[in-house]
């Protein structure tokens, strides 16, 4: 194809795609369903959520390996596994890989295998991922963060001095540059609070010091392209629900529904994402990214939260929103941007269409973690597929499926199993992901009764046995890494 000028061209381009494109990751959760849009799109995964029944998922036999510390480690393990190397090389073509996470070693391995990585470089991603840098990129784009100061902090007195100079008030939030914000965000209102986290704060060359606001989180995925930034729908975040996660403040799902935010807030967030994306292009970053927003409950002001320069946990929501079926999933624009195919798209028109509430329907996803503080070995786990809920709220397996859009009604849900028989169940281990039509939360943003029934109904199918002789090294430390 010479040039992509509209959505039909884009659909045709990927319908006819002959280059093998691999999503290499622990599971295929983040890009679930993209294989139905892109010919020769395959998943190479560490965990087989589908017990071998997904036609486009390849999981090599498991080999002993060094304890994984990150998703990057998993990807690097996969890329050196003979079965994966054979799989990729036998498929031939000019292979392409996309990742959730990757590092310089991943890039080196891909180069060795002749695989093109369709993402900005790991070095650039890391630079953009830095929370201080995010603030600066936002400032350049006219996308404001919560009132803040970026500075090195030597002591509590020093912190107070900086806060006063910037008018940040008495109650502060301090963040360090990298990492899951659940573990690198410190709420500081007193010297005692400071002392608890002094070591982490003082050792960093620069931290983000914010005014503490009464806020709600929201997230949105977008894609920076040469034609401009395409902006997906604004999603609510499910955070810190005790049935789902042992971590206070830990992400455990998303919702998408037309009335989640006021028209004004949605418009503000979309505009900020648009401008931020265009600024990322200017910084050299292009393609898919995710922005978190903090919405001040008192003033409805919308602030830039953090940037995830990658595919993220919200991707399955974005790529299955109604607009994705009306046009194409947002991720296809990422593939287009890296494909080398010339294109010119009317981004304004697409963004305007997707902003229409009619292009949003109601879905939610919940990440089920093991919440008890014990370690055991799973003996039975619910299979991936579609489950049904009876009138009394009980849940039962109905049929195998790997296409979540096959859920017929709010009485059905798609469960993607992550931890299966033989796996350790430890505090914070990902058990699986539950995707339902309709909402999981009440208007006050607490889990609703239907969601609670689904969670307990699915968890009931897990059985485990205690560990008799505990081998220390085999058990991952709690929260060793987030798999999503």
């Amino acid at each position, binding site marked *: 194809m010479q040039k992509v000028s509209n959505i039909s061209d884009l659909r045709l381009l990927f319908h006819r795609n002959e280059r093998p494109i691999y999503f290499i990751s622990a599971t295929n959760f983040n890009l679930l369903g993209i294989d139905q849009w892109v010919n020769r799109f395959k998943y190479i995964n560490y965990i087989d959520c589908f017990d071998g029944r997904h036609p486009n998922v390849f999981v*090599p*036999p498991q*080999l*002993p*390996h*060094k304890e994984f510390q990150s998703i990057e480690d998993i990807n690097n393990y996969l*890329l*050196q*596994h*003979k*079965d994966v*190397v*054979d799989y990729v090389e036998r498929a031939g073509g000019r292979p392409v890989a996309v990742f959730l996470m990757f590092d310089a070693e991943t890039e080196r*391995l891909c180069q*060795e*295998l002749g695989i093109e990585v369709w993402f900005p470089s790991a070095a650039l991603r890391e630079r953009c991922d830095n929370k201080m840098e995010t603030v600066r990129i936002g400032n350049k784009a006219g996308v404001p963060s919560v009132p803040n100061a970026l500075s090195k902090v030597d002591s509590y007195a020093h912190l107070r001095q900086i806060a006063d100079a910037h008018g940040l008030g008495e109650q502060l939030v301090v963040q360090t540059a990298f990492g899951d914000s659940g573990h690198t965000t410190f709420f500081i209102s007193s010297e005692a609070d400071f002392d608890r986290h002094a070591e982490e704060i003082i050792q960093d060359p620069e931290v983000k010091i914010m005014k503490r606001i009464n806020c709600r989180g929201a997230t949105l995925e977008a894609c920076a392209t040469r034609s401009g930034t395409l902006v997906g729908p604004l999603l609510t975040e499910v955070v810190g629900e005790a049935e789902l996660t042992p971590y206070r403040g830990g992400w455990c799902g998303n919702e998408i529904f037309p009335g989640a935010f006021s028209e004004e807030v949605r418009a503000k967030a979309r505009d900020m994402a648009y401008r931020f994306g265009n600024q990322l292009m200017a910084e050299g970053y292009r393609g898919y990214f995710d922005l978190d927003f903090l919405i001040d409950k008192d003033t409805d002001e919308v602030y830039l939260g953090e940037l995830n320069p990658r595919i993220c946990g919200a991707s399955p929501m974005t790529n299955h929103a109604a607009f994705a079926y009306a046009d194409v999933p947002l991720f296809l624009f990422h593939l287009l941007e890296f494909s080398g195919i010339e294109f010119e798209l009317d981004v304004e028109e697409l963004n305007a269409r997707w902003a229409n509430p009619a292009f949003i329907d109601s879905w939610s996803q919940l990440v089920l973690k093991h919440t008890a503080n014990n370690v055991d070995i799973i003996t039975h786990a619910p299979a991936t597929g579609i489950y049904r809920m009876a009138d009394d709220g009980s849940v039962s397996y109905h049929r195998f499926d790997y296409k979540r859009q096959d859920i017929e009604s709010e009485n059905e849900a798609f469960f993607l199993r992550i931890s299966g028989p033989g796996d350790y169940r430890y505090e914070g281990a990902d058990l699986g992901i539950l995707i339902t039509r309709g909402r999981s939360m009440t208007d006050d943003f607490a889990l609703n009764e239907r969601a609670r029934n689904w969670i307990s109904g699915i968890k009931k199918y897990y059985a485990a046995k205690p560990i008799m002789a505990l081998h220390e090294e085999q058990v991952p430390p709690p929260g060793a890494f987030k798999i999503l």
Partner: protein
Amino acid sequence: MRCTFEAIREDTPGARWQALFQLRWPAYQQWFLRDGYRARPSYLAGRRALRQHMPELAGLYQQLCELAGGGDLEARFLSQWCPPSYISGCSQAVWLDPYGVEGPLLARNYDYAPALLEGSWLSTRWLGRQVLAMSDCLWGALDGINEDGLAASLSFGGRTAVGEGFGIPLVMRYLLETASNTNAAVAILQRLPVHMTYNITLLDRHCQWATVFVAPDRPAEVVYRPAVANHQHSVEWQAHARATLSEEREWMLNQGVRKAETADSVLRTLLRPPLFQTAYGRGYGTLYTATYRPHTLMAELLWPDMRWPQYCLDVQEGVLNIRFDANHAG
């Protein structure tokens, strides 16, 4: 204790090699995993090393991996990149006939544990050159000769140093597959990384010969000593040298080679103590004596009461059972 020696002809890797692999893989797997699975480099690292250092073998390696079942662990083993450490005894010598009646001779004793000997004398034409070699690590070699008349043999160099490099049997295979004379083989040894210390003796049909001391932690060194055992310039690992009588063997073999007026005289030295070792129970008895003659392309395996000759370009298949006395006092 009994060892079975077998002469096998298979020009291109096929059913015969596959059968050997299947027979020996369980034992090799155990050895390969001795320090745990994670101690060995990845498949990709092994393949990368092979492609970088021995590119001529890369295609053959993939073929053998397929015959071995295509698995990750088997392929990691076959790459011989940073294998578990292994050591052995061995003595080797080059003899040049002072009267010019007989052609030059490379002769060696292979001293090792009988249970760990493959005993397969493989005649192959894997890369187009006929090679006859005593197999080790399933496609590596302990000693052998190729159709151009290059003969090569190895002995452990008596040091505990371990580094990033190839297991020596694969290096020997590489020499026999790709080099046609001593100079070419020396050049290869000067550039290849090896994972432990070894002495490699080379002899070609032009009577060019050399011994190369290779090690993971120092550059390869070419020396011209007619006989070597299990140390390099001096003994660095006393316990090993003492247990295997390395210095005594080297001295005796040197004397034997200098004085020998016929090839048979060299062989008599090799087949007698202290060169002929009998500590089978302790893992370093002499399992065979081998000779290679570049002028005639003749090779021979010998024991005190048995000889088995072969001609490199027309190897006759056969099987021979040799009994060793495990309880021998030696």
